[in-house]
């Protein structure tokens, strides 16, 4: 399982990762559109740098969740979680329902609103590169090694090592280790990164598991409803028949 670890304290906001991403994935240059959200991601920006006060730069991209809500939501399996950890998108299957955009707890997938043949657009962890044994374009481009690529377990260990080595500097938490089932994109930071996902009331649920009971109840509900209706039908039919017989008897007598 591959992953990316981004150390917010090392990021200088140079946007080299953004440019590398655009070049490798052949994304056009972009202009602000009325349908953009204010976080820099768009159909043509798969990663972006968010500026926070006091020169904090946070790179936003698809989190490649371990329990992805988008994959569970997609009705045609156009979004797939691969063994490498990347969530990839098959445009040939997509029907354009945008349910993944509703389901994603980080608000990542973007849409080609201006195209007559629109597709979902999001980071795919440079899947074609990582299957060749290379690292994604963004981590390769980073001049300060603020964002690095590797095995998720090793990166987690590295993240904890860095936090332990300098506990005054970092928030004592690896963002993405456990949230919403865990993500393949990990952050360590000196500020709280809660704003990257939507605020959740109470415990953080694993999203695909929320719909699982309802979806598992589908076959029993189908058969059960048929059985109940069959019972009522038999009962009403029989009552009708008995009444018919009674009236027939009366007529005969």
């Amino acid at each position: 399982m591959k992953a990316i670890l981004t150390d917010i304290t090392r990021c200088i906001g140079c946007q080299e990762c953004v440019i590398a991403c655009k070049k490798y994935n052949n994304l056009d240059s972009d202009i602000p559109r009325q349908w953009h959200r204010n976080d820099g991601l768009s159909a043509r920006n798969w990663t972006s740098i968010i500026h926070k006060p006091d020169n904090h730069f946070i790179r936003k991209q698809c989190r490649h969740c371990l329990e992805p809500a988008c994959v569970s939501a997609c009705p045609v399996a156009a979004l797939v979680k691969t063994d490498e950890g990347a969530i990839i998108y098959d445009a040939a299957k997509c029907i354009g329902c945008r349910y993944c955009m509703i389901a994603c707890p980080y608000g990542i997938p973007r849409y080609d609103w201006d195209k007559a043949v629109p597709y979902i657009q999001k980071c795919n962890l440079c899947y074609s590169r990582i299957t060749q044994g290379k690292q994604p374009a963004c981590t390769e481009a980073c001049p300060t090694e603020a964002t690095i690529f590797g095995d998720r377990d090793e990166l987690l260990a590295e993240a904890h090592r860095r936090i332990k080595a300098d506990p005054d500097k970092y928030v004592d938490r690896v963002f993405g280790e456990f949230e919403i089932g865990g993500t393949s994109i990990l952050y360590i930071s000196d500020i709280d990164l809660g704003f990257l996902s939507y605020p959740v009331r109470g415990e953080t649920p694993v999203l695909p598991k929320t719909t699982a009971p309802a979806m598992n109840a589908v076959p029993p509900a189908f058969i059960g409803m048929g059985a109940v209706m069959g019972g009522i039908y038999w009962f009403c039919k029989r009552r009708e028949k008995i009444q018919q017989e009674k009236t027939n008897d009366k007529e005969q007598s």
Partner: protein
Amino acid sequence: MNRVNIFKSVLWAITGAAIAFGITRMFFGLGSVSNLSDATPWGIWKGLNVIPGIALAAGGFVVTAIIYIMRRNEYHRYAKVAVLLAFLGYLTAATALVVELGLPWMVWHPIIYWQHHSALFEVSWCVMLYLAVLFLEFITVPLEETNRLAKIRRFLNKYKIVLVFLGIMISTLHQSSLGTLFVITPEKLHPLWYTPLLPIQFFISAVASGPLMLILAVLTISYLYRKPLEKEKLAALGFASMIILVIYGLLRLIDIGVQGKFPLAFEGTWQAVIFWIEIALAIILPVLLLSLRRWRNSAPALWLATISAVVGIGLNRANIAGIMLLQTGPVYVPTIYEITISLGILSAAILVFLFCLERFNIWEVKWQDPREKPESPPEFSRPADVWLGTPRIAGRTIYSLIFIGFLSLGFAMISTERIRGAGAEEVPVTKARGGDTLFVNGNRDAYGVTFAHEDHVGRLGQNESCVLCHHMNLPLDKQSGCHACHRNMYTVADVFRHDWHADPGGGNLTCGECHPPESQRLSTTAKPCAECHKDLIPPGAVITVEQYDAPSYTDAMHSLCMDCHHQKAQTLEGKENLAQCATCHIIDIPDYLPSEIEIKFRDTTFNHVVVPDIDTAGAEKDHSI
């Protein structure tokens, strides 16, 4: 004109305009007609047509269950109306999906690509199956008109009970699965609506709304066509619905109570207000009106109760499918185009409903448009009879005219700006400020460039270096700023004023003075500005002006600096970061700026970064240092 004519004319008008907008959407994308956005991917087409539409079409399975399974034969005459209502309800949902889906021609994909964890996968399967079932249930009605397919009709009638069973079982699944759709968004849906029991609530409220929708349709028909009402039967149906509404209301309130969310309902937020409006319309008012025998036997109370319940349950679906989802961007307000398409789909469905009512044997007596007498010849003979065929169609010329008129009006209403710009905002550029060091920040956000003008002049070779960048002035001007022509931050600006040149009060030029003869009069073939305006181009300017269009400010500035910066980053020792964005772009406001400059987006956490196309390989222009 009578009630039916006026009603139908309005419906035809809305349908016409909606078709015009729908065609625009198909050719220019969703952004050309809608305000849907990355923050609000589902809008009123889903929140108003698809999800409430399916809920309100539940009459099909509820009423057939009452008639065929519970053997209540006294309602038999409503069976066909209920099935037709359901069929059209599902067709409107399907039509809205065709407009709403990004790739509607792929809508059949769930048949071959299975993903059984997805609620939407189940919904799409069930809707497809149920549409087929409803089609088979309804098709016997038009088949009564002809003797050719009598075998099929008899077969379908004989096994109707199978279709009824299938319809109920399939409906149970997808009515509830529509609720499951939003169980996956606990962090987005407002807690007053979010509950894991959404599927059950959706199913029960759909069961309640089915007969109520039928009553409303029957009331409307009897009003339009001035037919007598069977109030007792309608009241009995209404009473049954009321009982289910009570169950629904109790389930809803108990669920909120168990989750301890009642304080939220009294917090005085707008969500709480809408919550109480929804509860009042969907549950309290209809239950009150339908519980007393005296009230539910009167037409006004039935009208009020059904409209209130239908609006309330529709509002419930709209709340869950859109209004109460977390706003993650600017507030979504549907455009006039979206609303018209939404209403147009409904109008078309009502027109089909009225057509079936007049044409087929749905009420066991045929309803007729009072204006139309099919047996008698049309009122006046017109060429329209020849064009449109039978008198029956020619008799509807008024509707055709209204339809075509509003179709054209719809096309005329479409804003070309919206299609051409497809949502691009035209941000005007403000002048770069400062002295020796300029603060270049066209849209006055907090992500500008500090450009050391004097330093660059020194490095690039004093006075000879001006023409490396400065390439054009406005007429009668010697030092035009960049913002004078590159007027738009992100879009191309037209710098040529045609009327000033051709106007008798202006330049008073004839066409031939700029446009060469024997060629099309286009901006591309006209002669360059500098041929007349000798002072426009500074002598020796490196950048040549070939067009009458000025590129956007961002493109102009980036292409001016970046070729050279990329080149120097590779050749100069220790200057690798020259090619990085952050080398030039700064986030704070420099101290040397005059204090009166207003920064617009000071607070935003992010400023729109436009990453341009960069061609580092071909950067071999003559920027001699």
